[in-house]
């Protein structure tokens, strides 16, 4: 009896340690390479330049010292985007007073989603740059950064409702522009995990 409960306690400790380990270290996602000196180089979001809803250029330099959540959407999207925006609003409101947190929502329909359209959308959603940037720009550049850097699906498809197929992913990027997590932005529980991971990156946990 006693040995059984001891065994259980040890087992519990063991799993406890394991899960602790997992909790502390967020993974570095994406392809890793070795540099000349043999050190691991993690996948990093390359330099970018897009226009936000205030017609201001947003670049990787604006993300220095920030952690951010990236996603892909378009303003006339009737399918998953509204769910994603509901979830992003939770993050936006939670970190209202935290200047280290940013949101970058890239339009995958930049020809329609010009600055004025994005501005209107932002006003209706009651959100403001620079904390939440709605981005437009060169379509090829947006698709390329989505597919290659943020590792999510984004392309045109006339068979799809709204004319585009894209993933509902939220991508968590750290202060060094490394991808540290990818979450399903249409699911509340998954976004709860995202918030937990943001807390870790912010050093609150």
């Amino acid at each position, binding site marked *: 009896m006693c040995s059984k409960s001891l065994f259980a306690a040890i087992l519990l400790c063991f799993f406890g340690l394991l899960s602790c380990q997992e909790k502390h270290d967020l993974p570095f996602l994406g392809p890793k390479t070795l540099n000349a000196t043999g050190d691991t180089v993690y996948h990093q979001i390359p330099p970018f330049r897009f226009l936000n809803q205030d017609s201001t250029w947003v670049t990787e330099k604006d993300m220095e010292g920030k952690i951010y959540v990236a996603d892909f959407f378009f303003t006339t999207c009737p399918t998953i985007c509204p769910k994603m*925006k509901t979830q992003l609003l939770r993050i936006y409101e939670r970190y209202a007073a935290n200047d280290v947190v940013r949101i970058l929502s890239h339009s995958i329909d930049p020809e329609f989603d010009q600055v004025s359209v994005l501005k209107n*959308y932002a006003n209706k*959603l009651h959100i403001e740059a620079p904390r939440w940037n709605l981005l437009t720009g060169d379509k090829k550049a947006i698709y390329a950064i989505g597919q290659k850097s943020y590792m999510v699906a984004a392309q045109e498809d006339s068979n799809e409702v709204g004319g585009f197929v894209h993933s509902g992913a939220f991508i968590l990027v750290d202060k060094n522009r490394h991808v540290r997590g990818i979450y399903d932005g249409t699911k509340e529980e998954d976004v709860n995990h995202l918030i937990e991971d943001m807390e870790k990156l912010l050093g609150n946990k």
Partner: protein
Amino acid sequence: MLALGLASCDSKEEILYQQYVVEGRVLYQTHCANCHQENGSGLKDLYPAISQPALWKSLNTDELTCLIKWGRKGTKGYMPGNTKLQALDIAEIQTFLREQWGPQKAIYSLDSTRFALKKCETTL
């Protein structure tokens, strides 16, 4: 005998009404709730709250039928059309909307839907 006939007639209508509400709820969740939310609250000013009585006063049911089917473009706000929805689907959605938030809890008939759709096809 006559009373019995009437009673069963009533309940037939009632059953049809309940069927429309149930089907309409499923269709609402698939085609409308993403934006207007399951409880009809909408999302800020982006997607209007369809639970608002004011909205019901500003739209007649024929207009609403056409709006559901064909959507709207323009300054009053964009809404994508649901062109794959058939008349019966829209009748069921309308019945569900009325049951939830509308002024009259009554069936919105298939005939009324077809009639409204004909009208907006000619004005398109």
